[in-house]
């Protein structure tokens, strides 16, 4: 039981430390999300502006339609990687360009090709920022979940398992103490009885001794006092009494 308590306490310490490490990481990520979101605002603005340039250069809105309709295969894709933070796997998105699928090759061939190209680059960078932000955010969501679970466990151990074990240990201890006291009391009783018996025996022995002594004395006295003929016992039994003188 004691070892169980010890185990619970060790587990509690470890989990608490884990929770602290995760929370630290979590705060870091939230800060970075905050920054990244603001950065995203700026980047998207620039990108939108570059698109406006494209529209202006090509001179018509048809380009947008052309782009949205000519989509076939994704060139820009993401790959997921894992990162380990104190036993928690956080995914990280990694963007990469698919080779061999060149899109929008003909877009803006007539006019504004340069603008289209530049806008494309701007947007690629913007989307890369977004991917970064997305991985931060995913980490945020997962960490949030994990921290909740870990904290729940820490609290469960701290407020339920440890007190319960302690109570059990206390109960066992008090029971053992009780047993100890009973045993002690029993021993005392036994000793008492024995002492009394010993005392009684002693008394008995002394009495016997006394009697024997007396007998011997009496025998001696009868032998010595026999010639007097006064060997009869004093009937009154006041041998030890002093004579009263009036």
């Amino acid at each position, binding site marked *: 039981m004691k070892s169980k308590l010890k185990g619970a306490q060790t587990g509690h310490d470890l989990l608490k430390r884990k929770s602290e490490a995760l929370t630290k990481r979590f705060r870091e990520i939230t800060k970075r999300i905050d920054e990244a979101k603001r950065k995203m605002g700026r980047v998207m603005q620039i990108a939108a502006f570059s698109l406006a340039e494209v529209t202006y250069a090509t001179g018509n809105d048809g380009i947008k339609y052309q782009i949205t309709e000519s989509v076939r295969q994704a060139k820009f894709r*993401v790959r*997921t990687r894992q990162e380990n933070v104190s036993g928690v796997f956080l995914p990280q998105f990694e963007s990469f360009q698919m080779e061999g699928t060149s899109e929008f090759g003909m877009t803006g061939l007539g006019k504004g090709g340069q603008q289209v190209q530049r806008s494309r680059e701007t947007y690629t960078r913007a989307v890369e920022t977004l991917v970064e932000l997305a991985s931060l955010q995913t980490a945020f969501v997962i960490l949030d979940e994990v921290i909740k679970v870990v904290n729940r466990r820490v609290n469960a151990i701290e407020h339920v398992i440890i007190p319960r074990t302690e109570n059990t240990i206390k109960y066992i201890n008090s029971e053992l103490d009780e047993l100890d006291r009973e045993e002690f009391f029993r021993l005392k009783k036994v000793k008492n009885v024995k002492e009394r018996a010993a005392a009684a025996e002693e008394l008995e022995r002394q009495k016997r001794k006394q009697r024997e002594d007396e007998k011997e004395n009496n025998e001696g006295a009868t032998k010595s006092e026999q010639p007097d003929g006064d060997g009869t016992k004093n009937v009154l039994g006041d041998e030890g009494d002093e004579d009263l003188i009036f």
Partner: protein
Amino acid sequence: MALPQSAYKDREFLAVIGDEDSVTGILLAGVGHVTDPPDSQKNYLVVDSKTENSVIEGAFESFTRERKDIAIVLINQHIADKIRGKVDAYNEAFPSLLEIPSKDHPYDPEKDSVMKRVRKLFGE
């Protein structure tokens, strides 16, 4: 809590729900993908003033729940506002949902569902 590999292994596309400008720009970066026919599905949705909310919700549902090949869903913030309840209720790790600003609507960190949670956690 390690997520199973299958939860994100095949996810490699981004999905976009946004107004014409945002979608065009992001598609220009090479994000767009149309699956092979016969059941060809686009991974983007262009929303204009005439688009019904139910259509947006349908696209959102299909991107977040049905399709298993999407890693990130990008949605314009003013469109996310239209289906705010659904966006706020969504808290899965995959695909991750990202609210992005659009040309006409500057980014407002107060409305973002994740930023709201950040603020809540820091007690602001």
